[in-house]
């Protein structure tokens, strides 16, 4: 039981991170119907900005952990949002209305480009970062196995929960959220009714990138290592999470993220660590066979 609880705690932490990334996929898919392939790279850039910001802060000599965390989060969100906006502007917007595969191929090109750009400018080696947020506590002990919750895990849950609340409020209650939902349902009609579609799409990319940036910061804190390749697998898994939850559905993305995190953790704990990356993929294929709309998704109707 103790071991199980520990895995549950670890899985929920991982799942929170996947959920935050998955929101970016599902939002972009909902609004322009494309898979933003470079989204995993956005998350990777967020993680790199976090490492760089931590290094800079320690050089300046900022002692307070809380202040450092706030500054790093803000920097990561700011820089990564700018990347999200620029990518949409440069690589996707000119292709709106082009043939079906064009934006997808452009996104793959962008992903390859960003990976190599970070590799060339920051080096191919793994970047280690000293633990920034030490501490934790033992929940209970059973049969010599102590179930611990680290401060970082609590931090990740709190931030994820807070972000979800803010995000749900933006989508559900603000003018921006209304515009977004309108574009998602029918962008041409929304444009006729005075919604600035281009701007809404830009904002969608910025919000998605900001959430991915937070995920990047948290993964840097959690694992303490970052390299230029992390966006690839994380993006794949977050996409799986979005499909599992039902692509286009925002609560679905979070639910899917948590489930994928749990599945991956339990798979590694009880089955095999070497094949842990296979778990998400197996789930993806099973979902596509048996429930292509995902858990909370609506069936898609294709019209001529």
């Amino acid at each position, binding site marked *: 039981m103790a071991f199980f609880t520990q895995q549950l705690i670890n899985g929920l932490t991982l799942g929170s991170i996947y959920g935050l990334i998955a929101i970016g996929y599902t939002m972009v898919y909902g609004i322009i119907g494309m898979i933003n392939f470079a989204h995993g790279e956005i998350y990777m850039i967020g993680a790199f900005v976090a490492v760089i910001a931590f290094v800079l802060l320690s050089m300046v000599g900022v002692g307070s952990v809380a202040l450092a965390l706030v500054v790093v989060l803000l920097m990561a969100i700011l820089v990564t949002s700018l990347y999200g906006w620029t990518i949409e502007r440069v690589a996707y917007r000119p292709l709106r209305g082009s*043939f*079906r*595969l064009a934006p997808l191929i452009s996104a793959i090109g962008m992903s*390859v480009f960003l990976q190599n750009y970070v590799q*060339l*400018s920051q*080096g191919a080696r793994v*970047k280690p970062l000293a633990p920034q947020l030490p501490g934790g506590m033992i929940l209970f002990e059973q049969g010599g196995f102590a179930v611990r919750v680290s401060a970082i895990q609590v931090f990740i849950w709190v931030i994820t929960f807070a972000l979800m609340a803010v995000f749900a409020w933006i989508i559900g209650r603000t003018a921006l959220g209304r515009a977004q939902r309108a574009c998602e349902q029918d962008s041409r009609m929304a444009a006729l009714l005075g919604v600035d579609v281009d701007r809404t799409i830009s904002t969608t990319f910025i919000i998605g990138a900001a959430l991915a940036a937070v995920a990047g910061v948290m993964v840097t804190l959690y694992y303490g290592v970052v390299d230029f390749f992390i966006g690839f697998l994380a993006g794949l898994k977050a996409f799986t999470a979005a499909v599992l939850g039902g692509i286009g559905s925002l609560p679905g993305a979070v639910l899917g993220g948590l489930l994928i995190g749990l599945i991956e953790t339990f798979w590694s704990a009880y089955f095999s660590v070497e094949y842990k990356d*296979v778990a998400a993929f197996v789930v993806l294929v099973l979902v*596509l066979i048996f429930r292509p709309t995902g858990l909370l998704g609506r069936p898609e109707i294709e019209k001529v």
Partner: protein
Amino acid sequence: MLADTTPLAKSGRWAEALRDAGLAALVMLGLLVLIVGVQTVDGEGGLTANFRFDWVLIFCGAVFAGRLAAKLGAGDAIGRALAKPVGGAVGAFSAYSKQIVWLGLGFAAAMPFMPFADRYVVDVATAMLIYVMLGWGLNIVVGLAGLLDLGYVAFYAVGAYSYAMFAKAFGLSFWECLPLAGAMAATFGVLLGFPVLRLRGDYLAIVTLGFGEIIRIVLINWYTVTGGPNGISGIPRPTLFGMPFTASPPEGTTSVHEFFGIDFDPNHRIIYLYFVILALALVVNFFTNRARRLPLGRAWEALREDEIACRALGINPTNTKLSAFAVGAMFGGFAGAFFSTRQGFISPESFTFFESAVVLAIVVLGGMGSQIGVVIAAFVLIVVPELFREFADYRMLAFGLGMVLIMIWRPRGLIAHREPTIRLHPPQGNGR
């Protein structure tokens, strides 16, 4: 256009262009200042930073100048200046495409015997032909059937490993293994495609991408069969009707140079390999060209254009897509088997996502569905980097950027010209 000549409009245009360029430079500054400007390096007691703000300023300046020039109409001027020669070249190219193809074929056949063709040149040409073959194979899937396959390297890997295992375990020759390797790859293609091809195309992209990764993870971890990260070495070399290309053949066999009564030359094997891959690639090309005239090939192209219309006409989309997927996978498997016998050693290192990206880039840059385009793109992406080895690090960077730019500039690829396979009313001599 007329209003532009008045001084007021001109100064207004300048102001607007300057503002726009300034904004672009500012965005660039924001993008670069941390990632490029601050390089984290390993220092004593953890990471330290290495500042490179001069680079950031150079890039920002370049963006400013470029944007300013574009806003003031330099882009259009360059576009107009380029349009004529480029258009002319493409036009001449399509007009003489038949002659050019035969010329190219003749050159490919004679190449190994030309004076400049030393071992290195033939080796590079062989490497390029592997990519041409992969590109043609993927072209069936992406170009004809319109299915985006991001894990093509998986089938390449399946082919390579099946050849290595069949040849080592059962002592089969290259030519006996080739169909087996193709069949294995096609089987994997069907197994993967079956659940996914019923769905929208985007899902296929992600699932094939995942599949490519899975194959690599399995190859790394399944030590007992694949040798893990160490790979498989000592893979048998190809033979000509059972005759090996060695200086001293094993007992009971005749080597090629003894049979023909010529002096032994290690280059013979290299040249033989070159011709094998040339022939294999041409088989793929021939197949594609013929298939496009068959009902099956027409169904592929029709599906690419409009799936709903196809369904209305009674084409089964899943089976049609599955056949394209399986055929593409089979050719990938052939190429893999050839790669395996050429290298004599394979490991999971050779089958990363980057290989898939390179092959896809070849197909996309060449113009989806264009056979010649694939050859040109393979030349540009494989041979040209060979010439600029010192810039090898920037190769993938340029690939990625190239894919984006091509999609924006010429979404149908460099050689976008594509003849319809059938015309309702043949042109009446006055051209199109």
